[in-house]
């Protein structure tokens, strides 16, 4: 015959199993409700969809390609704008520390709507047009981005230190702010240095 203590153990076990069973639903639902760290990611991959082979030495009329990607870890659906800009080595770049976007004009724009945990990727093909050289100065007249031709009219001097004429295509990530009903620079940008050569 079982002792009273044995029965006590049986009752406690049944009680625990019962409470766990009944409250499992609530526990699972509440556990899902706690978000982790919130952030957005912006990245660029080379033409082989790897973090290598980025175009660097570029010449007039040749089409180059990279892939742009955005990851949403904000805990909810987010509206992003991916702004592509073009500059020479002396023009202002975005400042991630102060959160200021570059004042340069946008040459191409992607609008991205992403659910939480989702990633967006799209090709960015570009070609420098009307490239000219005069003594130690180079110029780029137009830029073809994803088939859209934009006047840029940029000039870059020969850089003795790094031996090249440098320009940069850079991409800024903007995020829609529901409170202010406006897009705001998300303090994230990536740049791709381009050395314009006469022949490649």
């Amino acid at each position, binding site marked *: 015959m079982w002792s009273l203590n044995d029965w006590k153990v049986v009752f406690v076990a049944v009680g625990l199993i019962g*409470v766990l069973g009944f409250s499992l639903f609530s526990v699972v639902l509440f556990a899902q409700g706690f978000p982790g760290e919130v952030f957005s990611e912006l990245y660029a991959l080379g033409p082989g969809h790897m973090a290598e082979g980025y175009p660097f030495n570029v010449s007039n009329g040749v089409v180059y390609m990279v892939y742009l990607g955005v990851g949403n870890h904000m805990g909810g659906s987010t509206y992003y704008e991916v702004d592509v800009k073009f500059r020479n080595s002396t023009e202002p770049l975005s400042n991630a520390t102060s959160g200021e976007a570059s004042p340069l004009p946008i040459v191409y724009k992607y609008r991205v709507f992403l659910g939480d945990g989702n990633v967006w990727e799209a090709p960015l093909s570009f070609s420098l047009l009307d490239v000219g050289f005069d003594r130690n100065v180079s110029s780029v007249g137009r830029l073809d981005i994803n088939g859209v031709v934009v006047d840029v009219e940029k000039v870059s001097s020969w850089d003795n230190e790094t031996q090249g004429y440098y320009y940069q295509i850079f991409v800024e990530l903007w995020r829609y702010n529901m409170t202010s009903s406006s897009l705001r620079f998300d303090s994230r940008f990536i740049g791709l240095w381009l050395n314009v050569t006469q022949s490649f």
Partner: protein
Amino acid sequence: MRFWAKLFLISVLVVLGVCLVHDVFGVSYQEAAGQVADADQALRNAFTSVVDAEQQGANVSLLLSRLGMAGGNLTWAEVALAAGNYSDAVSFAGVCRSVALSVDSDAAVLGNNAAVVAGNWWMMVVFSVVSSVVFVVVLFFVWHRFRRGYLKRLMGSRPEVTG
């Protein structure tokens, strides 16, 4: 008479031609820019509705992909506007606005449905918590009854000597 008929026909064609030309090339920069701005606002409103629906528990992945399509059209509208192709800008902006408006209304419906489901969800949580408490109380009560009966039986039993 024949001459007058020809003249009349030519006049009608000229008037029609002028009307058609106005329809094709008659979009001004201001008009196109206004349409693009309206489409941009419609897209933002639609996104706000989608987020509201999501917060009510709706699955909004399809709505987001439709917003992506609307956003693509808005980008093309801006490109056309910058290139001076105002009629294309108006056309792309129109597609964007129409998709955004449909997403807006679908998000409202989806959000309302999700709110009903969310109500059921809270019912389940309350049921789950209440039933746990009731189970513990009942078990405690049963344990006390059982313990009392057990001890009573134990006290009432007399030792027997056999053999």
